[in-house]
């Protein structure tokens, strides 16, 4: 009889999360792009997506570094990450980033926050190394040249 009374019980365990999907982590990445790799702390959405896409893999980062040397972007297309858009919304709600006519700009608060985060040299070390190496060399014009081809095709 005891056998019948036995029950199977399932315990629902939480799943791990990719760190860059933590809201603040993604926001910090975006702030870094605006702070370190964008003129005037401003960038269009496709350009933000390009950097976000590049930061996911080493070979993509190398392509952007090559683009810096050649002054021409040799990337046919890149992924658009919904997490970036969501993170942008949150960042705007928190006044870390503000929307301007066709692009997004880092606010003073955002700049302060990311500077404080960078006081620890280990923090976001990979992202910072890459973005500093690229610098502000990937211009809006280079990005929109590529984006133009999508419309024509």
């Amino acid at each position: 009889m005891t056998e019948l009374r036995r029950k199977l019980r399932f315990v629902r365990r939480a799943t791990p999360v990719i760190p860059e999907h933590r809201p603040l982590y993604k926001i910090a990445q975006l702030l870094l792009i605006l702070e370190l790799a964008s003129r005037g702390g401003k960038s269009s959405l496709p350009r933000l997506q390009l950097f976000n896409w590049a930061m996911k893999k080493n070979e993509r980062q190398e392509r952007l570094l090559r683009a810096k040397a050649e002054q021409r972007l040799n990337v046919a297309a890149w992924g658009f990450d919904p997490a970036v858009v969501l993170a942008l919304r949150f960042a705007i709600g928190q006044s870390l980033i503000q929307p301007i006519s066709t692009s997004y700009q880092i606010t003073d608060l955002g700049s302060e926050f990311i500077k404080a985060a960078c006081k620890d040299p280990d923090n976001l070390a990979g992202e910072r190394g890459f973005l500093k190496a690229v610098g502000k060399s990937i211009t809006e014009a280079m990005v929109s040249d590529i984006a133009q081809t999508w419309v024509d095709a």
Partner: protein
Amino acid sequence: MKIRALKLHIVSTGGDFGFSFAFGKQLTVIRGKNSAGKSTLFNTLLYAMGMEELVGGRDQTVLPYGVRDYFVWNGERLPVLASEALIEIENGEGKVVTFRRPIKHEQRQSKLIEIFDGGVLTGSLPLSAPKPTYVHDAGAAQRNEGFHRYLEDFLGLALPTVPTSSGGEAKLYLQTIFAAVAVEQKRGWTDYIATIPFYGIREARTKVVEFLLGLSVFEADSLRNRLNAESVKIHEDWVKHVGELIRAANAEGFLVQGVPPRPDVLFDEKLVRVARREGSQEILLADYRTQLRQEYRELDLRAASYHEASGEKAVADLDTASEELRELSFHHEQSTTALALQRASLKEYEELLAETKEDLARNVAAQKLKQLGAENAIELSADRCPTCHQNISESLLGEAISGPVMNLDENIAYLKSQRQMFERQILGVKDTINRLESVTSEIGRRLAEKRDHLASLRGDLSSGAVQSRAIVRRQVQIEAEVERLESIERLLPTVLAQLSDLARALVSNQSARRALPKDRYSDADNQKISIFQRNFRANAGSFGYESADIPEIEINRDTLTPVLEQLELREISKKGADIKADSSASDFVRLIWSYLLALHQTSSSPGVDGNHLGVLLLDEPGQHSMRAESQHALLQHLASERGLQSIVAASFDENESVFREATGDVSYTLIEWEDKLIRPLTA
């Protein structure tokens, strides 16, 4: 120990300067205004005894510039050309010596302390026949010419050996003992025995108190420590010998059975087998060697009859050899494949590990961001939407994932355990690879031998030689292999004997450890601690401690510090961890007085036979605007404590009435000076 007199001697361009004071046998009060040189006097005293580490430094750097650089006299700035400190000390047997230590000197280093027999300062004996000793050099506490070693002998102490935090042993250095009898002003009043210099001694304060109270723990401690170290050594030796044997056996394709990887008291060398697998069979080393010898003899016979042998026989030999070669090739193929697979999985694991490590670093970054966000009042740090203030998921794509997600802490813990798992896997795979490599290389060697053999057989067959090259070659191989096997056989009994010895050593180590007393303190020790507790409570009461109910204060049996309901009594901590254990600042200082005094009272109690030095040097005990009546109680206790010489430096709030109240009807020797401590020395 009694400090009889102290002298500072400065040679300047303006002549001889300094100070010279004699101390009373009981209480001496050094009275001086703030910054009048009380601490100069106090630190010079410690310096002259080689105890300046209590002030937090080494050599003359702990002394103010006034005694080593320049000082001002009559408005004139006088440079110090040379300076030295002299101190006269008497031990328990009434023997008097004088120490002289340079502060600033062209030739003599501050490490040098010269010892003169007799009282040079009070008896005005000549400075002759010095015995040179050194402080702070390696061995200053151990070697004969070390000053601390000398002082230890002179004071009749036998300092015990105590465990260090690195697992070794060290002497309970004399400086640690002095920390319990000399309290300097800056850090000294921050804790019970606060200024013990760092020597890596584990629980140094507890050890010092145990020594002063004459507790019997040191022998047991030292034994326990030795047994622990011995057990570690047994383990290391075992692993070393076993590894040696296994390596030698594996190189010849043999496996060692019956040897536990870690020391085991049940180890029996009769159960050890060294064997190799041939197909499904196991062959012992000795049997295998006999087989080889047998083969060798058969080859001899065949060589003798070789020229008579028919071509048929040679062809049959060739067939057998080819068959064996095919089989070996197959084995070789198998083991190299396995090796390749293992290497591939090692690479994979290493990549996974690298990924996990990177993920971990990013998670830690995310956590730091979250903390930073919380400090900057960013709502997302509390998982709330900044616009609508609703709770949001911890993941940006939370809507797309069904089910709960880990929070950051859980995720970091999860990744850490992943990392640990991968690290273990990698170790295991590396082990397997090592084993496979040795097996593969052994098969490879046999394969090469067999190929040689086969080639010689073919040569024999086609050339029709009188002497078979194949037989000779094979015989040479057998000879070499037998030699290697014999070296393993020679190694085996020595290693097994060593392992048996280690197993026996482990048995006696474990039984000795079991025989150690379970309780740290013996009954006699507990009694001494009870006396200490009683004295401490009585002192606290008479010094006017009122932050807690005194009868509820106990001396903790683990740390030997005062506790209230198992919480150490301390000064009010800013974080306010527990109100019960907090005392106001001046009340905490009262506890320190009580503690230091109780150490002497207990040590000199009948039947305790403690090791207290019999002196107490207190620099500015009236901390935190201590009430004058409490200071009075302290001085009264010090003056009436038998066998205790105490030297108290104090400013008495620079107030005549406080001084009079604190010292009223107390008998003491007074040291005070006008204006400047450093003045011309009169001969």
